[in-house]
């Protein structure tokens, strides 16, 4: 027994493990044990989407199309145009899903950032403004790093918190944030629109968002 050396086998296993590390996270995910608590339905659907699974696409559409359409409609204020943008968003998702890096953050915030960017780009074209990121039209947004409390606070409770916080702000502060988020205006443009000092607008927006962060943290 002693005479039989196992070293060649161990060396080969080491090589195979090294090779396995070079495989894509998706391929490895098929062999890695995971728990339901760790993998959201969206993450599973996106994994299938990368494999061009039409059924996964349809499920993702059914899960998020109403919220996406609501956001785009809120920005564009025109149903036909909003539907065209939503169609573009979901087609882009279908064609470029592999670019979404699940290790960096959650899918939903990324999807809504993508939707907002596309809607604002369309809005800027519509109003014939200079597009700020003309060379980035087809690029997908970076994935936002989700804080720990994202997992604790479910979407419904987060939605309630966000709406409650915004309702508690003074109307001008709320309007400043809405102009930035839904109309894509800069600090200077908001200050001009509201006829308020630039510094005040900056403080309103920053303080409002920091309060939102504190509220979400406290609620979790």
């Amino acid at each position, binding site marked *: 027994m002693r005479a039989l050396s196992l070293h060649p086998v161990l060396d080969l296993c080491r090589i195979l493990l090294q090779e396995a590390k070079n495989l894509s996270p998706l391929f490895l995910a098929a062999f890695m044990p995971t728990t339901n608590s760790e993998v959201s339905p969206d993450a599973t659907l996106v994994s299938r989407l990368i494999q*061009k699974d039409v059924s996964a696409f349809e499920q993702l559409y059914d899960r998020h199309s109403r919220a996406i359409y609501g956001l785009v409609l809120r920005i564009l204020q025109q149903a036909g145009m909003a539907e065209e943008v939503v169609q573009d968003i979901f087609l882009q998702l*279908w064609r470029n899903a592999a670019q979404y890096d699940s290790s960096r953050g959650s899918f939903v915030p990324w999807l809504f950032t993508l939707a907002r960017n596309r809607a604002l780009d369309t809005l800027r074209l519509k109003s014939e403004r200079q597009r700020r990121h003309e060379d980035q039209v087809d690029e997908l947004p970076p994935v*936002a790093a989700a804080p720990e409390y994202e997992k604790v606070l479910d979407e419904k409770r987060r939605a309630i918190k966000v709406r409650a916080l915004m309702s508690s702000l003074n109307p001008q502060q709320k309007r400043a944030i809405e102009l930035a988020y839904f109309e894509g205006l800069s600090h200077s443009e908001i200050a001009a629109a509201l006829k308020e000092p630039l510094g005040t607008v900056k403080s309103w927006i920053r303080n409002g*968002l920091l309060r939102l962060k504190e509220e979400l943290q406290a609620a979790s």
Partner: protein
Amino acid sequence: MKNCDQFRDMFEAYALGALDAPERAALEAHLTTGCPECSKSVDEARWLVSQLHYLAPEATPSDMLKGRLMQTIREEARSAPRFVPPKSNIPFWMWAGVAALFLATIYSAWNAQRLTREIQRADQIAAAILQHRHELETQLEDAKREAAILVDPASVKIALASPDPQAPPLEAIWHSNLGIVLSGQKVPAPARDRVLQLWLIPKTPGGKPIPSLTLRPDADGKFVLLVSNPPELMAATKALAITEEPPGGSLAPTTPLLWVGGVS
């Protein structure tokens, strides 16, 4: 750190897209340096800003939108190459080699264990055979010695008589060099936990009986006992005696003498 301090108030506005061009350019230039703290803060701010989508009320798009989308998706899915997991750089022959090596290793280990077990079994059988042979050789030696004692004219015959008239007489033949052969037939068996023990009674006045071997007759009451090395010389021995003792014998007789025979 001081460089980062000037951007600390900008992360949320940057994620929101509200920074004016000069500020945005300055922050983006800083981010391209790979500052981990600011990059992390910007990532967190992006997530925070993404939560503002909850401010927009949900709305239902037309069914036609879904219909158009699904039609396009199905067409693209049909024409798109199916997803295949990334291929490994390891060629097939190497996988086959690993598998063969793995199987060979398992077979070798199993075979080695089997051989080890067989060797152990063979060792046990050989040891038993050697033991048996040794016993046979010992018996043969004893038989030769007994025969020599019995036929040698120099041997001295000693009759051991019992005070019990029912007990058969025993016979001992003592050769001064080869030892004593003690035998008997139809000897009543001692109690279950007792044996018969041979004693040499010295000629020395007041000398204590010297203990020798113990024996048990067989089922027919027959026995032959060879004492190869008697504990005393024949010339110094006055008589041989037999008593009943516990298994293993005693240092001094604990029961009355059952047989006694004088050494002439």
